[in-house]
């Protein structure tokens, strides 16, 4: 089980009515790394994510997670295995407080979710753990604030805290910084860095400085196929990557 790679795909493809959004992708994500997936718009990054989390069915190929074939599983089951995604648009439970948001995730893990005959005060045993998690992402003072009332960047942090509550082994983040101001970007980047000590992270991001600073390894996709893979410094020298993604002006 001490495999080097936590997630592997073989020949992963997705066809939409004759159009291959993802074609024959072989991805290997190393346990404990931050792995970035970049590429021009429409390259198939989000589609890849959807395939990995089973929100889409692959047309061909295989997905192995911790050595287990998960190609035919349902989304909720994949999440239960510890492979959890975040959404491109922020996904919180707006009228629950931050604490409750996190608790909902904790509750799933520790059972009792179907108990309709018990008082919800049984959930209070999760409060400490939930506070810890909020603390981790710097949201302690928001614990009793409904999520709607929180600023955008804080919602993203809350989302990450909620995801962490599931104690996932691997997180998929789709453009976690999209639409954020610089301050927030820095905060979230630091957060991701911090949590990457414990978890494996696969993320899609267009913000190059973030990608450069955070990722251990980068896979570049174009037209659904893997174009190149390597460290940031290697890739910036790659003419093909420059042409397809970074653009001429890039140093």
């Amino acid at each position: 089980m001490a495999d080097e790679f936590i997630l592997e795909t073989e020949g992963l493809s997705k066809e939409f009515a004759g159009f291959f959004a993802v074609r024959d992708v072989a991805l290997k994500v190393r346990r404990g790394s931050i792995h970035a997936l970049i590429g021009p718009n429409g390259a198939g990054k989000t589609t890849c994510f959807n395939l990995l989390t089973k929100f889409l069915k692959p047309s061909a190929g295989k997905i192995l997670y911790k050595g287990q074939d998960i190609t035919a599983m349902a989304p909720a089951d994949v999440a239960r295995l510890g492979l959890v995604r975040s959404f491109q648009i922020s996904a919180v439970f707006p009228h629950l407080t931050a604490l409750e948001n996190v608790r909902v995730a904790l509750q799933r893990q520790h059972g009792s979710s179907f108990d309709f005959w018990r008082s919800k005060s049984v959930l209070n045993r999760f409060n400490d753990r939930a506070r810890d998690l909020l603390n981790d992402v710097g949201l302690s003072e928001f614990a009793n604030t409904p999520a709607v009332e929180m600023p955008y960047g804080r919602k993203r942090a809350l989302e990450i805290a909620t995801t962490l509550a599931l104690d996932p082994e691997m997180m998929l983040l789709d453009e976690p910084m999209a639409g954020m101001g610089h301050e927030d970007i820095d905060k979230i980047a630091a957060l991701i860095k911090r949590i990457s000590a414990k978890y494996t992270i696969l993320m899609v991001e267009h913000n190059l400085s973030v990608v450069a600073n955070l990722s251990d390894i980068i896979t570049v996709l174009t037209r659904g196929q893997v174009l190149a893979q390597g460290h940031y410094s290697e890739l910036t020298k790659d003419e093909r990557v420059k042409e397809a993604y970074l653009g001429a002006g890039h140093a």
Partner: protein
Amino acid sequence: MPDTAIAEAPANSPAKAATGGNLLQIRNLEAWYGESHILHGINFDVNAGEVVTLLGRNGAGKTTTLKSIMGIIGKRTGSVKFNNQEIIRATSDKIARMGIAFCPEERGIFSSLDVRENLTLPPVIRAGGLSLEQIFELFPNLKERLNSQGTKLSGGEQQMLAIARILRTGASFLMLDEPTEGLAPVIIQQIGHTIARLKKEGFTILLVEQNFRFASTVADRYYVVEHGKIIDGFSNAELAANMDKLHTYLGV
């Protein structure tokens, strides 16, 4: 009635607008979302043929400003003059027909329409817009995916589509809300070129940007928004001198 009056005003055609003059004048603009007061008296001007950028932190009220101009905020007061016409009370369809086009930050691609329909949806309000060929030249991705369902496009492709469709209408004044969000660097460069070219053709552009590096390549002037007010403004030439202030405003 006012529509026709405007249509006849010569200063309104994109070609002539380049001659300068005050196109948009905003005074004491206040706006509310339900109970919450968001804009607390915005004042600024946009001259014909310029590219003006609004900068500011998340939640400062940039988007709200654009929406208020477009007439899609429930409650707003103050004065917004476009071509010397007061439009603060006008409905958004009237405002659109006066030649203002808006590209929202959430893109607003219609999932029940295919790409072609999305592209041709906004009615052409007067001659002078880009033709479909010109648009495909700018955004080749779109041409390939013409028959896809609108929201099946990738995030970036949707952004392109959102910009592309307002270029067709012949509106001379474009408001783009974070047009580079979620775009690959190559495409961002392309959009930069596009904006430059549109400016050359006489379009006036009001831009909202987080990506300051990008904004600095296209803008003539900047305004900084904070807590629903304009707290500063300067031209591109003064940019270097203002960098320090900007850092504190934006935390860049």
